[in-house]
């Protein structure tokens, strides 16, 4: 009898532990096109060229198809990945980018505020993504509330709950 309880108890703890570990882990993100940030940076593009909302809006945004089409209507390389893009441009279909960085729905974040007022660099929160040659499968920086708050404390930014939760 007692042994039965022991087994059940330990198994239960194992299952709970597995779940907790599992839920803490990030899902890996795969992009439909293996976009090479580094190459585009070398070509002279600023982050805000594609992520157009970043200076003036709360959300940064992903480039609309028209932005890619500025250069890629005709293929610039022999890359199979670029060919995928060309096909979509012809069809007029937006690229189904998968979100890599996403805050919980109860968090409200303004890019404009952090870039224009705090003068932060993109890499502070997104890691050196501009040097990545393939799209990262996991966020380089984990955006936990603790992480956000530590920077806020250091830099004297708002510690008011309502600043980010509405």
């Amino acid at each position, binding site marked *: 009898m007692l042994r039965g309880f022991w087994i059940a108890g330990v198994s239960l703890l194992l299952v709970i532990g597995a779940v907790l570990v599992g839920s803490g882990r990030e899902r890996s993100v795969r992009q439909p096109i293996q976009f090479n940030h580094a190459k585009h940076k070398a070509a002279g593009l600023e982050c805000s060229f594609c992520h157009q909302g970043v200076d003036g809006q709360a959300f940064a945004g992903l480039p609309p198809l028209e932005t890619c089409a500025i250069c890629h209507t005709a293929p610039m390389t022999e890359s199979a990945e670029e060919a995928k893009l060309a096909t979509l441009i012809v069809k007029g279909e937006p690229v189904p980018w998968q979100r890599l960085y996403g805050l919980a729905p109860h968090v409200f974040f303004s890019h404009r*505020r952090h870039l224009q007022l705090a003068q932060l660099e993109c890499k502070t929160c997104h890691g050196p993504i501009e040097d990545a040659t393939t799209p990262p499968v996991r966020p380089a920086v984990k955006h936990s509330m603790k992480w956000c708050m530590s920077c806020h404390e250091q830099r004297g930014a708002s510690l008011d709950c*309502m600043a980010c939760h*509405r």
Partner: protein
Amino acid sequence: MSADKTQPLWGMVIDLDRCTGCQACVVACKQENNVPFSSREEAAYGREISWIRVMAVTEGEFPKVKIRYMPLLCQQCDAPPCTRVCPTRATYKNPQGIVGQIYPRCIGCRYCANACPYQVKYFNWYNWSHFRWPAEMRESLNPDVSLRPKGVIEKCTFCHHRLQHAREQAAIEGRPVESTDFVPACVSSCPARAMVFGDLRDPESTVHKLAASPRAFRMLEDLGTEPKVVYLKEGEWNATTGG
């Protein structure tokens, strides 16, 4: 957290002489703040949520009857009874003097709703955010405001999300936030121009001047809540002077 004296002390004045009880404010608020609508049964249970609602109090007996319309919203008390009883600090007063409601912290004990003498804290009895809006209507939701889950309290925030926008704008322009920089949705919509909003501390602001009017009163002031919503009494026509 005590209010920061260098910032505007946001307050509202509602002129009951001008208010016609039309409830444009009620609808504007719901649309702005993603407040789900009720069904007949839910409303019959008294579970409909209206961050601002119009009390229509009938006075007198036939034929001397009057209705007093009174828009009732969170009074954004400076000494809020609700924040004192919250076990998780989900509701608290922020440096701008606005009494906030942080949904992820709320555990739904409803102690604050009980403590509020104005009965302006509303509980989400249902998982409305999930099932209430058909897909088509979800398109007109406001991205600046959360969708609340079942089991949390919500209430008027003086459209704090609009204040955040205004503060960001002011900061980028390198100037302090001004009294006229933003208005909550209710104030904006009022067709009778009965609602005024601004900095109660700024002697130049309309709210400051109106708050000193002989018609001004605050609700349940003697409870010591220090509400920041000021009402102006309805006027009376003078039969002798005709004015």
